């Protein structure tokens, strides 16, 4: 057997994990996740500033999966025990782990193999920019009139980098002939 997303999920989840979820990424589920994480951060007495940053990062990253993740085929879904997956076909994993400076947001989803290079190039391109350049790029994309048919506008990932002021880390695992499994780490502090 090759890479198993469930094993990966269980290995990334730690005893001190603040929040973990795997399954369908629906509009409703996004709302529930946001609410739950906000509550957990309040219980930890985290600052409003950190809570706001979290909220924004989670909105953008989860909606990114909602809009752009490939609907995965039934064969790929088989590993998942989430009943909603049969309907939604948009799958994601989210794990929030404490780090030395704050939290590590770990997001994972399937991606079609032929789209991998594009994603890697995009991340490399953003990671090469300093914070002033990211701000300028944000404004440039905000003010260009193109809107993707999904309404995203390509701003989400730029917004995450702008707000967190940290580099994105991605890791890719081969899954089957069609899909790779990709995890993205975002540092929030």
């Amino acid at each position, binding site marked *: 057997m090759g890479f198993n997303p469930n094993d990966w999920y269980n290995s990334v989840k730690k005893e001190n994990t603040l929040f973990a979820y795997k399954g369908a990424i629906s509009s409703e589920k996004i709302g529930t996740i946001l609410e739950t994480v906000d509550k957990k951060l309040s219980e930890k007495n985290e600052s409003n500033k950190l809570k*706001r940053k979290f909220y924004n990062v989670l*909105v953008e990253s989860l909606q990114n999966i909602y809009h752009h993740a490939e609907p995965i085929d039934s064969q790929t879904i088989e590993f998942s025990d989430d009943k909603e997956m049969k309907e939604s076909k948009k799958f994601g994993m989210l794990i929030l782990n404490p780090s030395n400076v704050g939290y590590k947001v770990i997001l994972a989803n399937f991606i079609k193999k032929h789209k991998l290079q594009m994603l890697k190039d995009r991340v490399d391109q953003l990671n090469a920019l300093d914070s002033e350049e990211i701000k300028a790029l944000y*404004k440039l994309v905000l003010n260009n009139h193109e809107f993707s048919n999904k309404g995203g506008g390509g701003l989400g990932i730029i917004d995450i980098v702008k707000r967190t002021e940290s580099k994105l880390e991605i890791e890719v695992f081969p899954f089957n002939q069609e899909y790779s499994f990709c995890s993205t780490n975002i540092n929030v502090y």
Partner: protein
Amino acid sequence: MEPISIEGTQKTPTVNFNHETGKIEIKGRSIPENSIEFYKPLVDWLEQYGAAPQKLTEVNVQLEYFNTSSSKCILDVFKKLEAIYKGGNEVVINWYYEEDDEDMLEAGEDYQSIIKIPFKMIEIAE
């Protein structure tokens, strides 16, 4: 024309557009998955309002959160207002932000640099 009055939800803002008073208000959270669907009627309303606007249009934007797809739609709202302003009418945009929310202040400043309408940045105590 009819005023717009929409109550806010967990993902969409409270909206009050009134052509008789010239007051335009967007308040709360704006993080819908489909922002265009939510904002299109607002942009269309402003298009119609622009044909015979009040002498002064006062715009109050007080957002707690907005997602990036909303940010594009909010820019579309501002562009309609800019057209009204350029037509020789008075338009004022009051951009509210919580005192420690630098990102929200910066977002307002981004709009201010793109849209040629007087902006007023108003800090509110948490």
